[in-house]
């Protein structure tokens, strides 16, 4: 067994040839390709122009629930510049519908979803008619000429009402009206622990639907080649291979005839991980027309058809013994996931995290968790950065701080007392979730020192004496990464948990790699490049990492769930280690020196005896490719290596952890919250690029602040989305956001040689709870507490009795 990477010394100065800059693992190198981003040279999906390409737009349902009595497209079709106008009935024969269920989740149901609604529209924004024209503007002109005879139906909007006995069934073919899934975990004697505890308190917490609001909207260009009967789709996506599988299956094409190219992508955050009906319709159109088709969602379409997430109503309970030990956690929750469960991942994953991870950082004796999931006539629900982790962190950490406040014990002290000790891992939670190695104690110790906690509390007391209401809030979080097959594969979703990477030497000794993950801003390309460059001891410029092209890359699960660096990075590491072995073997033959004496440094093969360079990697490659006769006595050089990696030790994934703190000041006259400072200490194992990892954390924290204070998809009682513009759906902007201080604890995972876990979701997972806890800490002297998110000024003023 090789030494794991973290057990070997990283590159030491002695190993490096003179002037060879360390750019490998652990170096904060600049983002690979950053220049093209600042110069406007990066190519996103909407930048593609092709001969004969048509542009589509969609007529979307203006009603949350309506029967489509008839559609008249005659006038639209006759408009000059219009190429085609199609309805759901036109497409039905050419595809298999989506069905967003995971078969390993008992009782989970959904209904078949077609690319365009058939007889019934089930959310405001559901695509109903697709119009293709020579420009998007013309297509939109034609949209106004389509006549639809809508018969409005009773909309089912509120999830509680959706589950009532007499509720209108959104999908009449399903057995239980509008119940999509129900998750329940009961371990230990919950009622007994509650009865015996000195303190049991419950909180009713609600969160509002949010959506990712990627700056680049969803989009694709599809091109069906009628001669070869092959499909190419360029798209902004996190999951090229998943899309390849889904398109192939649902369009009845073999996968080797479907190429998906992940383009430069303007943000994704889980949004670009699903199969969307409008995208699917546009791809089908390319096949029907035999010409390229472009679909780019506009902002209104984005708000009404991108997945929404995180709309929970939960009653959370915590029971604490008189000596301040947490005895039990409980949750009863409900959420509405819109009209369909999304294909192919389903829309109930948040719930699984909530029931499995409630109270995860703490040691306690009993768990009760019950969450119901309802269909409703709203935009379908899906993944958003962190999925359920931010919600379960919010529920847990609001309860913990509330209990500490009630007990008049410092929240830091209370956490130290109740954490599962760092030395007690690996551990299994009451829910059965297995955690490999977490470091809550080490993280909180570092955080407290980073923020100078005692001084902050003193300053807070002084501020209060001056009539200013400051608050300090904490949040301990766990966050899943490096997923195993239990996440989707077992449920039948075509999402690889086994990722390949190909590393190939070129004739001049440079390296060309292919991986099926994508980089939608995370820095995955940079991390993977660093890993290969580190392993082969080459400068970064000698390694080119191509991502996300299914025609070039081996199968991959793609970029989601903080898996890119941990999983695809390990495949890249293994491929380059194998390539390095082959390079040393061939060098030994070419220069007739025993293999054990040769090492690879800075593009040179070096003889350890005498330290002389035998020759360059370029010379070796030249010989291997152009003069294979020089290797006659041994096997032919194999200078392209593919290795796969699957994390199989923890089927549920490798958990990361960390802790955050927020300092806020609340203006009690206006209810406005000023974010003064934010801290995070994160443990993502081996950090490949500290600067880019920190930026992942910062960006995600600000997204979390958005959900805590600003964001929400606001619906009226008819299921109409009321704020589908960026002027009305408030996102964090530069002016109000705090500077963020970042620290790391490094507990490498032993499930890989690389030792890296994920970092992309940790920031958002803890930020929401930290900020809400800080606000409530500030309001405590006024006996105020806000439990509905977002924590808007009016809610704050109501909580402290200024308005009613």
């Amino acid at each position: 067994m090789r030494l794991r990477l973290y057990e070997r010394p990283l590159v030491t100065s002695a190993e490096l040839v003179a002037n060879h800059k360390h750019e490998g693992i652990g170096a904060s190198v600049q983002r690979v390709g950053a220049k093209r981003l600042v110069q406007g040279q990066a190519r996103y999906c909407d930048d593609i122009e092709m001969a004969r390409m048509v542009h589509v737009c969609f007529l979307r349902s203006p009603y949350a629930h309506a029967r489509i009595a008839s559609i008249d497209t005659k006038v639209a079709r006759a408009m000059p510049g219009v190429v085609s106008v199609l309805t759901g009935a036109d497409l039905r024969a050419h595809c298999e519908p989506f069905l967003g269920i995971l078969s390993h989740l008992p009782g989970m149901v959904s209904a078949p979803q077609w690319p365009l609604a058939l007889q019934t529209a089930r959310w405001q924004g559901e695509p109903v008619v697709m119009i293709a024209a020579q420009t998007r503007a013309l297509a939109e002109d034609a949209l106004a000429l389509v006549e639809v005879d809508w018969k409005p139906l009773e909309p089912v909007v509120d999830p509680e009402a959706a589950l009532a006995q007499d509720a209108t069934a959104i999908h009449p073919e399903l057995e239980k009206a509008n119940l999509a899934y129900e998750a329940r975990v009961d371990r230990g004697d919950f009622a007994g622990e509650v009865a015996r505890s000195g303190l049991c308190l419950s909180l009713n917490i609600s969160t509002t639907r949010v959506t990712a609001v990627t700056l680049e909207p969803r989009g694709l260009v599809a091109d069906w080649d009628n001669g070869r009967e092959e499909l190419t789709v360029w798209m902004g996506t996190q999951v090229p291979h998943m899309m390849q599988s889904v398109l192939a299956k649902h369009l009845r094409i073999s996968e080797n005839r479907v190429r998906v190219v992940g383009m430069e992508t303007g943000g994704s955050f889980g949004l670009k991980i699903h199969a969307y009906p409008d995208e699917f319709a546009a791809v089908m159109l390319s096949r029907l027309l035999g010409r390229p088709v472009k679909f780019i969602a506009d902002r209104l379409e984005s708000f009404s058809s991108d997945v929404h997430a995180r709309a929970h109503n939960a009653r959370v309970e915590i029971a604490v013994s008189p000596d301040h030990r947490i005895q039990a956690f409980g949750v009863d929750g409900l959420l509405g996931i819109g009209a369909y469960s999304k294909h192919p991942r389903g829309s109930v994953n948040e719930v699984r995290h909530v029931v499995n991870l409630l109270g995860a950082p703490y040691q306690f004796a009993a768990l009760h968790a019950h969450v119901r999931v309802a269909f409703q006539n709203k935009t379908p629900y899906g993944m958003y950065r962190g999925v359920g982790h931010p919600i379960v962190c919010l529920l847990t950490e609001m309860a913990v701080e509330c209990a500490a406040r009630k007990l008049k014990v410092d929240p830091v002290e209370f956490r130290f007392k109740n954490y599962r000790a760092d030395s007690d891992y690996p551990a299994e939670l009451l829910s059965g979730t297995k955690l490999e190695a977490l470091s809550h104690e080490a993280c909180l110790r570092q955080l407290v020192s980073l923020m100078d906690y005692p001084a902050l509390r003193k300053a807070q007391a002084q501020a209060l004496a001056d009539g200013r209401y400051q608050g300090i809030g904490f949040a301990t979080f766990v966050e899943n990464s490096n997923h195993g097959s239990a996440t989707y594969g077992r449920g039948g979703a075509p999402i690889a948990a086994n990722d390949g990477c190909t590393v190939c030497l070129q004739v001049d000794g440079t390296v060309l790699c292919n991986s099926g993950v994508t980089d939608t801003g995370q820095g995955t390309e940079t991390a993977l490049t660093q890993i290969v460059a580190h392993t082969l001891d080459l400068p970064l410029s000698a390694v080119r990492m191509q991502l996300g092209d299914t025609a070039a890359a081996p199968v991959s699960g793609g970029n989601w769930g903080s898996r890119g660096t941990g999983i695809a990075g390990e495949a890249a590491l293994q491929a380059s280690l194998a390539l390095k072995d082959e390079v040393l073997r061939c060098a030994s033959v070419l220069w007739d020196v025993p293999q054990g004496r040769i090492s690879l440094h800075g593009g040179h093969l070096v003889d350890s005896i005498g330290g002389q360079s035998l020759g360059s990697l370029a010379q070796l490659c030249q010989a291997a490719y152009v003069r294979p006769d020089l290797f006659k006595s041994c096997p032919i050089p194999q200078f392209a290596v593919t290795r796969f990696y699957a994390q199989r030790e923890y089927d549920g994934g490798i958990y990361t952890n960390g802790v955050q703190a927020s300092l806020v000041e609340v203006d009690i006259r206006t209810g406005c919250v000023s974010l003064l400072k934010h801290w995070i200490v994160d443990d993502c194992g081996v950090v490949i690029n500290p600067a880019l990892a920190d930026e992942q954390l910062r960006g995600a924290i600000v997204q979390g602040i958005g959900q805590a204070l600003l964001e929400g998809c606001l619906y009226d009682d008819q299921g109409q989305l009321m704020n589908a513009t960026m002027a009305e759906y408030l996102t964090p902007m530069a002016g109000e956001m705090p500077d963020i201080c970042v620290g790391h604890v490094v507990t490498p995972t032993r499930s890989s040689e690389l030792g890296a876990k994920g970092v992309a979701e940790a920031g958002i997972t803890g930020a929401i709870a930290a900020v809400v806890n800080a606000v409530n800490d500030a309001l405590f002297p006024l006996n105020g507490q806000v439990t509905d998110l977002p924590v808007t000024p009016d809610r704050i003023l109501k909580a402290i009795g200024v308005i009613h």
Partner: protein
Amino acid sequence: MTYFNDLGPGTGLNIELQLNGQPVRAQVSVRQNLGDFLRESQGFKGTHIGCEHGVCGACTVRVDGRAVRSCLSLAVQADAAQVFTIEGLSDDPVVRVLQDSFVRCHAMQCGFCTAGMVLTAAELLQARPEPSRAEVREYLSGNYCRCTGYESIVNAVMDAAQTLRKALSD
């Protein structure tokens, strides 16, 4: 490459402008916005369309020296104007320094907002060579970035301001 436009007979207007330093004559539909004109008719894809209603700032271009939202401007309004997109500003001393600082400070992730950020920051630094962090945050408050959380972008603008001041004093 030719780009289709949706001109019906007699519905277009002729405009003449300087685009990235080159004279351009074009017939444009009166309803076409400047962003679509730059991207679709002229092929300058570095200008990104994010929200199409003036909130996100991704489509920011320079028109007669000012940072302008090309989704809220009509192409016909650019008649007789000097228009620069990010592609045409690599020789602009302020923009070039900002680009270097953005790279050095890791001030972008997906890169979709970056051109708009750089052009907005350039306008600020031309007017105020020594801004405070708060002023930078305030000035960039009309430019949306979902990825970075803004801190690194503020760092980059401060870094560029310092570099420019140093260059001036040298």
